């Protein structure tokens, strides 16, 4: 243990590259996080159960076990947020890890600001997921969703959505800031027995975007994570 801060959230880094660990250590400690470091997957699983960190940063290219296995083993007993770090071209590994329960991912090389944002989102969701928390209205830039009345407005103007579009929107809103994979969306919107293909999801997403995103502007609410899924990202 080399934590400096005493009260900041505890982060477990599972990463075999010393340079990346050094960069993460210095920058995250400077932002008040406490750090645990594991070099192998096995060590990561052990430390996760021993210290129960608030968030795990997990590299997908570990020398011993793959990140997917680490994710599964942690998910067996804990819902602690897992942030997957991967290189480009590992889309399917990423999707597998996300479908196995990882919360989000970052593609190497990533900017530190991006990392901090993801950590914050993950921590926020982890804390909100506690039972009893009532869902307030969702606001994201010009978009506003009132869950109790099922009203959706963009810059005050009401937008009419179909039931599926609405469900899609609320699912993404519930995970706002986090990536939601195609599979997760299909299951949440069409139900666990869905037989639909990705193209259904894609077409509905296109409709949803056309209705909710300001035309001709590059400001986007829904971000496509190509090959992975979608992310509702508020500006």
């Amino acid at each position: 243990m080399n934590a400096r801060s005493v009260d900041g959230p505890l982060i477990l880094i599972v990463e075999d590259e010393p340079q990346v660990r050094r960069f993460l250590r210095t920058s995250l400690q400077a932002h008040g996080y406490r750090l645990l470091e594991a070099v192998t997957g096995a060590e990561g699983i052990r430390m996760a159960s021993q210290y129960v960190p608030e968030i795990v940063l997990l590299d997908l290219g570990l020398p011993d076990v793959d990140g997917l296995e680490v994710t599964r083993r942690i998910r067996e007993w804990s819902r602690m947020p897992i942030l997957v770090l991967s290189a480009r071209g590992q889309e399917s590994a990423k999707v597998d890890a996300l479908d196995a329960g990882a919360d989000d991912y970052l593609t190497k090389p990533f900017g530190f600001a991006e990392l901090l944002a993801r950590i914050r989102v993950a921590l926020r969701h982890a804390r909100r997921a506690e039972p009893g928390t009532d869902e307030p209205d969702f606001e994201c830039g010009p978009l506003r969703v009132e869950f109790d009345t099922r009203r959706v407005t963009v810059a005050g103007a009401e937008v009419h959505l179909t039931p599926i579009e609405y469900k899609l929107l609320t699912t993404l809103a519930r995970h706002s800031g986090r990536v939601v994979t195609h599979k997760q969306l299909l299951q949440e919107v069409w139900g666990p027995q869905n037989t639909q293909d990705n193209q259904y999801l894609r077409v509905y997403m296109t409709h949803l975007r056309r209705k909710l995103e300001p035309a001709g502007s590059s400001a986007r609410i829904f971000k496509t994570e190509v090959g992975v899924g979608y992310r509702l990202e508020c500006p």
Partner: protein
Amino acid sequence: MDERRPTPEEMLERAALEEARSGRGRLKIFFGAAPGVGKTYAMLEAARARKRQGADVVIGLIETHGRRDTEVLVEGLEILPSKSIDHRGVTLREFDLDGALVRHPGLVLVDELAHTNAPGSRHLRRWQDVIELIEDGVDVYTTLNVQHVESLNDVVAQITGVHVQETVPDSILDVAAEIELVDLSPDDLLDRLREGKVYIPAQAERAMRNFFRKGNLIALRELALRKTAERVDAQAVEWKREQGIEEPLPTRERILVAVNHRQQSADVVRSGRRMASSLHAPWIALAVETPAFDRLPEEVRDRVSEHLALAEGLGAERLVVRGERVSDEILAVARERNITRIVIGKPTHARWRDWIRGSLIDELVRGSAGVEVVVTSGEKSEREPKRLAGSRRRSRPAEYAWALVPVLSSTLICWVTRPIFNLADQAMVYLLGVLIAASALPRGPSLLAAVASVAALDFCFVPPYFSFAVGDLRYVITFVVMLIVGLSVSRRTVLIREQAEAARQRERRTAALFAMSREFSVEDEANAIARTALTHVRDLTESDAVVLLARDGKELVPLAGEATGLFGTQRELAVARWVFEHGRPAGYGTDTLPASETVFLPLVGAAGTIGVFGVALGQRKADPSPSLRQLLETFVAQTALALERVLLREETSRAKLAIETERLRNDLLSTVSHDLRTPLASITGAAGVLLEKSAPLDEEERRELLETVKEESERLNRLVGNLLDLTRIESGNLRIRKEWVPIEEVVHSAIGRLSERLADHRVLTELPEAVLLAPIDPVLIEQVLVNLLENAAKYSPTRSAITVRAAAAQDAVVCEVMDEGRGIPHGEEQKIFEKFYRVADGRRAEGAGLGLTVCQAILRAHGGTIQAENRREGGALFRFSLPITGETPLVDTEWEEVRS
């Protein structure tokens, strides 16, 4: 000076001869008139002399015949163990060719050149062993008696009355670098014989009464002397030609020897050879296959092949043509090949046959114009074997019965028309019947129809009626004329039909050859060529066949399938190997390794033997005819040429590919080293300055350096990304995962990913109203758009517009990325897609020039295309199209809205 120089043809000939001799061993023949003149002795003495000079001398096989003074000379020389071959319980000692090849001495002594090897040896004859030795670079000393020389064989037989079976082709005398005549006067030889120096006394006694009569010996000695002199003469001519000494040039004679199936034809061939060699003329042995020839029994037809093979062995070119009339074909070949002399055997048949069939010699002489026709005699031989009954298809009884049908019909017609027709008309009706019979039936039945017609006419219509008796002598003349006309009509008709049949067969073969050549011309792969050749050869010969190709000049590998069955056996493979190494046919029907079921023919291309063609002719029921063999050889030659063409092209493209790969690697190395190092230099430089404590930096400077580090790192990341993409695509490791994706989703995500880099430009999108689905790998197509957008941003001024347009086209989605930059230099619209290509217009733009290559590779993998062009209004336009294959899935969208 110039006029004395040899003509180019002569120089070529000489060069060819030199070439043939270089790298080969020298053959020296100790030549004698009869056994006992001391050839072996002379050979051993010469060998001992060579050994004293330091040569590596080995005795391959020596027959000392128990002669003591010869045995003394053998002592001290290395003797190669002979090979024992068991043949029907008798152990035969044979020269061990393989042992000699392995031992590979400088000089090997092999006695008795004309010896016939024991069955089971590689070659039928010892002289073939010797040829193989000298081809392998081993010098050979050997002995030979004059009566064994092929072209003198019949002369010797005439002199001595003894027909020698074991002959060697004259060409081996031409191969020999040196011929030493071992001469002994007949008296001395007879003395030696009496002293028991040649044979043991009992044998000597018998020998002296038969072969070794003084008259014989004198004649044989003369022959040997003359043969040697002939060769010395030839050497002198050669030498003079070499030296450029003027020599009255021999008129360029060309000799044609007509060969047929008669036994004396072999003697005609030998006379032809004698004539050709004394005139230094090239010669052709020609056989003409006529329809009549086809009707001869198999073994008689085979003799033609034997005679042709004999001629070939004597140095002739063999030729088989098909035709109706022998004389016409001979004259046609003579005209085509500028023949000056036609050699033909004396007729042996009775004179009356010439009256009926015409005399071949007469026809030749009349048609020969300037060509000399030489008629030579052969020895008297047994009469031509009768045509075997089985050789021609025996006519069935039913056919004889059918032959009577037109006769009966004619009789009926004549009976009905009796009141109007006279005898002449009736004869005509019968002749018509004969003609009909002949046009449909074989020989026998049509002849029966002719005879029966005459009989019927006599019986029914000539008084006294219903009797064969003839009342008036006039009618006899009518009958004779009618019989002659009837017979000749039927004969002619049958002949024409048979000729037509033969022509059809020939036509089929020519067509097969033509078809094969044409099929070859469209094939560009060795296996396909082999498959085509095999199909045709199997059809042609009705036997199994195989093509073996030498890969890397060594291993013989079967093309177009496995070498199975017969061709897979060790024995057949050994034959194939031998054929490949020696470039000569071997196996079934040849003189080399004839025990094999298969004949292997070398596939000889322009640059040497490239492989072997094996045909299992031994599996056929009947031996192939000479013309079939010739056609097979033509097929094989065609196959060789086609295969060589393909192999050469493969080699060329391989070489080209190697060069291309090498060039690419060099490009890659230089580009990668430059493009990777440049950003690295900036990063390390900036980091170094930041770490340096001695020079304090203000906040602004620090920030600038840090931004450099960040930007350069991103640049490196893009380069590495493109390199990886390209490597994955090109190595074939990239799997395209196609899904139906709305094209606007990919467009938006690409623009989103590049938001920072596009911040200085206005990005416009023109997308279709309807959701346009395309079957694509979204990750890869997004990369295409990212690369195109990056390029657009890189090559166009800030604040200019970049437009992305997508639209549906016929079975495709077309995307365009347009900028307002300078566009692409004229003529480089294609080059920009090449690896490491960057537009050279003075601007220094970052990137390794891989972006567009990656785009092209991705689109190719999708079956799409990408082009670049300049817009009329300025700027570059990149257009790519993605094919829409398969049914676009229907997505039923609901219309009910969420709020009620």
